[in-house]
């Protein structure tokens, strides 16, 4: 890694660790395999959103040309959000693309992502299915997102459950002989309509 990138990442590391947000456990980062080019980021779901209570893991890759090119960031934790792919975790956010500025840092990226969780941009979607649901039936979107958060981003016993969803997932798994994740995606993408979800898995 280029000298300047190494220096920057070291500085940024301490910046995040010392920051207010980190003290409050809102964001944090750590190294993967002791390499400065491969980081793991964590952000907590913002309050009053379907993501509240969840901890979301991020894969952060620092390019050779950092900070003149943006870091490559994607969600490792599965998440139901219009601007984040429910399949790959790819993120659609301007500052990670053409709006990246060399003076931005990992900290600002993490904070921006947290802001993205609070305010989605359904008109500029990464995941078209989620975006459609967000616009057409917002309540359904909220429930689904909350369900995903509880399943994928929470640990412990205080998980929020929605028995109807759990039941439908079990049913679909039995009918179609698919694993839980696939059943969940199929149902989420079809507004939890069991019949339509079955159809979508058939075609």
């Amino acid at each position, binding site marked *: 890694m280029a000298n*300047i990138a190494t220096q920057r990442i070291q500085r940024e590391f301490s910046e995040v660790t010392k920051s207010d947000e980190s003290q409050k456990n809102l964001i944090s980062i750590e190294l993967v395999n002791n390499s400065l080019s491969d980081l793991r980021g964590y952000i907590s779901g913002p309050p009053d959103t379907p993501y509240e209570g969840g901890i979301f893991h991020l894969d952060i890759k620092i390019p050779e*040309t950092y*900070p003149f090119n943006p870091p490559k960031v994607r969600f490792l934790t599965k998440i139901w959000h219009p601007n984040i792919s429910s399949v790959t975790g790819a993120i659609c956010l301007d500052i990670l693309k053409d709006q990246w*500025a060399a003076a*931005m840092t990992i900290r600002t990226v993490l904070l921006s992502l947290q802001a993205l969780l609070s305010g989605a941009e359904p008109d500029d979607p990464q995941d078209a299915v989620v975006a459609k649901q967000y616009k057409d039936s917002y309540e359904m979107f909220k429930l689904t997102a909350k369900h995903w958060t509880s399943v994928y981003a929470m640990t412990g016993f205080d998980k929020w459950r929605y028995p109807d969803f759990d039941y439908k997932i079990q049913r679909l798994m039995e009918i179609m002989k698919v694993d839980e994740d696939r059943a969940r995606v199929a149902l989420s993408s079809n507004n939890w309509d069991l019949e339509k979800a079955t159809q979508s898995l058939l075609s």
Partner: protein
Amino acid sequence: MDSDDDFVASEDDSGNESNTGEDEDGLNVALIDSEPTGSSHVDGNDRMEIEEEFPYEILTTEQIVQHMIDCIKEVNTVVQLPPTITRILLNHFKWDKEKLYERYYDGDRKMLFSEAHIIDPSETTSQKEIKKYLHNGMENCVICCRDLPTSMLTSLACGHRFCRDCWVNYLTTKIMEEGMGNKISCAAHGCDILVDDQTVMTLITEPKVKLKYQHLITNSFVECNRLLRWCPKPECSHAVKVQYVDFQPIKCDCGTVFCFLCGENWHQPVKCDLLKKWRKKCDDDSETSNWIAANTKECPRCNVTIEKDGGCNHMVCKNQNCKTDFCWVCLGPWEPHGSSWYSCNRYDEDEAKAARDAQEKSRAALQRYLFYCNRYMNHMQSLKFENKLYASIKEKMEEMQQHNMSWIEVQFLKKAVDVLCQCRQTLMYTYVFAYYLLKTNQSIIFEDNQRDLESATEKLSEYLERDITQDNIVDIKQRVQDKYRYCESRRRVLLQHVQEGYDKDLWEYTVKLDKV
């Protein structure tokens, strides 16, 4: 660059070095390397016949740069700004001087500068913010996080200071990786102030990057300027400069003849918009539609295209919303056929007829397209072969010269091939034109002209492919000359007629055109 050493700013420097007029002609130093050479044309010689003279100039890369500098200088005598600021402003107005003057003097000056993403050099307020990082003559660069002597840091007029290394890295990334030239903004987040040429040329030392930057700036100058266009030939670096925009052929110094309006090969008589539609249609359709025509039928109810891949003639449309049952043979409903479809005698039944009518209509449209497309392609193909003809003609000419003919006497052959190529090219595009033409009296005349030219062209082509021997040479020469003169005149007549139609607005089209 002789100003490299001057660049490292002294401690109390204001931070907008780039604007403090260290040389008024900074742009010249920056962007021009060599004296211009080149040629200018006044069109109308052997190229087209029907237009009046259309003056244009072919410019080399150096001349383009010179032209750009001249434009900037001219504007500068009026507005009196640093040249690099003027360039950004001009670029903002797509190199329309008048618009710049208008906005500069009549409008809101502040707004103008903010729209163009530059800081007004007459304003000095923004320079004060700079010193905030300053302590003990050391300053922190927020990109690389190093504490450096203040003199190592610099900024644009917006006052966001970064160290020189970071600037160089930043600019290099933008130029080399993202191909950005005149749209590079300050490295600070959310700051949209544009980086000026002076700053780039002073900071960047690597020749490769400099060259690319110059290239990008020149390119955007040509692309933005409505009176300029690059020669479309990939390896050619010339551009053409015209005095007014018009549908006209340009002959570049590299030999390419192209349309000034769209940059395609010169395509008279058809105009750019129709040609564009045609190209798109060809790209979308040709192969696919050939196959569709040969292998499919449309569902009589929902018109979805169906390929029959089994023997049974009882068809059930797979379209989920349609699912209609029908007979592949007569396209009528299946029900009355029962189990004895093979005695299908319902050909004239009303329903089947209606179905056929509808289908025939869409087939006919396709047939029509294929008719024109085939002829268009055919001429294009022939045109490619004529290159071979040039080679064989050259041989023939040498041979004839050994048979007591002078050089000048055999030149008619080359001329004949030239004419042949021109005619083929014109014919090719007449089919595009004809495809979109509605039938009127004028279009019938056009088709007659087209027929005449086509048959004459084919004859000429035939003559040229014949063996020329000692005995028939005089005879053939006479015939070839007669024929190519005839072709030339027929071609002129056809083009004139089309032009007349344009002038008098006689042509009616099968498609709606956006008025240009």
